[in-house]
């Protein structure tokens, strides 16, 4: 009973062929099309760039006396740290993702709070309204902002017409455009976990705080906000992680001078045809971004589970 499944179901769990098929088919597919590609990438990250099709040198060669020789090239890796372009692009990606996460939190929190506190009939409708833009194409939502933000676009025309500004604002092809559009595109990822946490929250705690004389703002700061931390953490991760690797938005509305890490990988691959360096950058992103985050989440989940076990 440790696992929480009744022992009768354990019979399915211990079954032979069916069970092997249920695990084996997905494992085979993902091994072939997810794990293997990364091993290939890792191998290429240690090979050398040549002129040819494909533009990669072998890392295992046969010497004259018939022995296999393994040649590992680490110059792709030394570029990553000696050429500031890669580090700058990586730091810019982290910074952009951070700004996006903060913007999503600032816009999303009041919305999620308002939906969670609205009457039950309204709640589902509002939730639908929030999710619906998410179902339309990502590319189309980004495209909509191109027409709004460009120099003779809708926003500038509106502001000029209202006499708020006298010169068109140069937003398109700057980092500002990237921040705005990324906050727009990633908002649902922040909103939904926030809503889920706020909706489940025990309102009697808020009432207790107010009964004891706390002002609404103090109650929010000391009760509501701490209680919604799981939603904030989940939403922030869901926004931050994909935002670091975002490619389409900086390409379409950002400036070519402010490349993020995904664009660097893309350029190395397609424009410079330097596959080993592109592979090394890709591997480095996995090493420096994903593995720390996954470890963090895993450690957190483990400590939560321990705390829960200790409490019961």
């Amino acid at each position, binding site marked *: 009973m440790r696992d*929480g*499944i009744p022992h*009768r*179901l354990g*019979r*399915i*769990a211990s*079954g032979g062929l069916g069970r092997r098929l*249920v*695990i084996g*088919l*997905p*494992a085979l*597919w*993902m*091994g072939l*099309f*997810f*794990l*293997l*590609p*990364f091993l*290939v*990438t890792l191998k290429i990250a240690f090979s050398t760039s040549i002129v040819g099709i494909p533009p990669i040198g072998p890392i295992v060669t046969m010497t004259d006396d018939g022995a296999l020789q393994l040649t590992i090239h680490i110059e792709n890796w030394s570029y990553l740290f000696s050429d500031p372009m890669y580090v700058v692009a990586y730091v810019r990606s982290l910074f952009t993702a951070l700004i996006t996460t903060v913007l999503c939190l600032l816009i*999303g929190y*009041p919305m999620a709070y308002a939906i969670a*506190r609205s009457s039950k009939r309204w709640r589902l409708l509002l939730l639908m*309204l*929030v999710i*619906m*833009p998410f*179902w339309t*194409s990502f*590319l*189309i*939502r980004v*495209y*909509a902002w*191109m*027409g*709004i933000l*460009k120099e003779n*676009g*809708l926003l500038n025309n509106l502001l000029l017409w209202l006499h708020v500004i006298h010169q068109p604002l140069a937003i398109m092809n700057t980092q500002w455009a990237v921040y705005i559009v990324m906050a*727009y595109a990633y*908002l649902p990822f922040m909103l939904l976990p926030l809503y889920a946490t706020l909706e489940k929250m025990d309102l009697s705690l808020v009432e207790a705080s107010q009964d004891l004389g706390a002002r*609404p703002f103090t109650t929010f700061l000391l009760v509501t906000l701490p209680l919604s931390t799981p939603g904030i953490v989940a939403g922030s991760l869901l926004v931050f*992680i*994909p935002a*670091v*690797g*975002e490619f*389409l938005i900086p390409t*379409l509305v950002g400036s070519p001078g402010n490349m993020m890490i995904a664009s660097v*990988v893309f350029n190395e691959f397609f424009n410079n045809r330097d596959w080993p360096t592109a592979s090394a950058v*890709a591997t480095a992103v*996995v090493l420096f*971004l*994903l593995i720390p*985050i996954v470890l963090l989440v895993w450690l957190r989940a483990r400590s939560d589970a321990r705390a829960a076990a200790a409490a019961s």
Partner: protein
Amino acid sequence: MSGWRGHLLTACLLAGLAFLYAPIATLVVYSFNASPMVTIWTGVSTHWYGVLLHDPEMLRAARRSVEIALLAATGATIIGTLAGYALSRFKRFRGRSLFTGMMLAPLVMPEIISGIALLLMFVGAEQAFGWPHGRGVMTITAAHITFCSAFVAIVIQSRLAGFDTSLEEAALDLGAMPATVFCLVTLPLILPAIVAAWLLAFSLSIDDVVISEFTSGPTSTTLPLVVFSRIRLGVSPEINALAAIVIFIVLGATTILTLVRARRAATEFA
């Protein structure tokens, strides 16, 4: 919630919804613009819808996208459902953490990295085994199945997690084989989740740009790839018309789904 705080909250909500919908609304409005300049209004016209419907490149790409999305969604639903079932019901087996990691990693992997890795593997496989011959519908579909499976698995897993096992137990107690239980009890119960997962996979596949960019060949350009290459050059009213059509389809589909669900809830209640 009373007084000015309630009003402030409502104002925030309305402003947020305006932020979400205003860009979409401008797309639809300007798709009916007569002018070839997207942002200068000259009059109402459906001219650009006509241009779109006579654009062979767009039509071919749209058909290909639908074909790939149908295949990918179906494949991903099969693999993802099996994986989601394994993740929630088989608590212990050898390599479970590797299995979990492999199944769910595509959710957090930047698309550009998955795309490059797949392309490198396809190139390597072609060099080593002579297969696949270049890249086309086959490679793009395989790539889509892979990342969509992760989303399907998580939907199915969370559905099964909050699911009463007593029905499955009862069937087992009455002597049904595990496979029979899965087909006759578990599957029908999680069918709504499977349909939702299929729809999610379909929409992810038909919308994908980055992974498709790496795994498509000259004969398998999908609709998002055509749109991407065109809008890199700037805005065009024809794309607005396409966007409006997509928005109408999504709007129609969600409305129908909501109505069906509401009616079913009403009949079950009665």
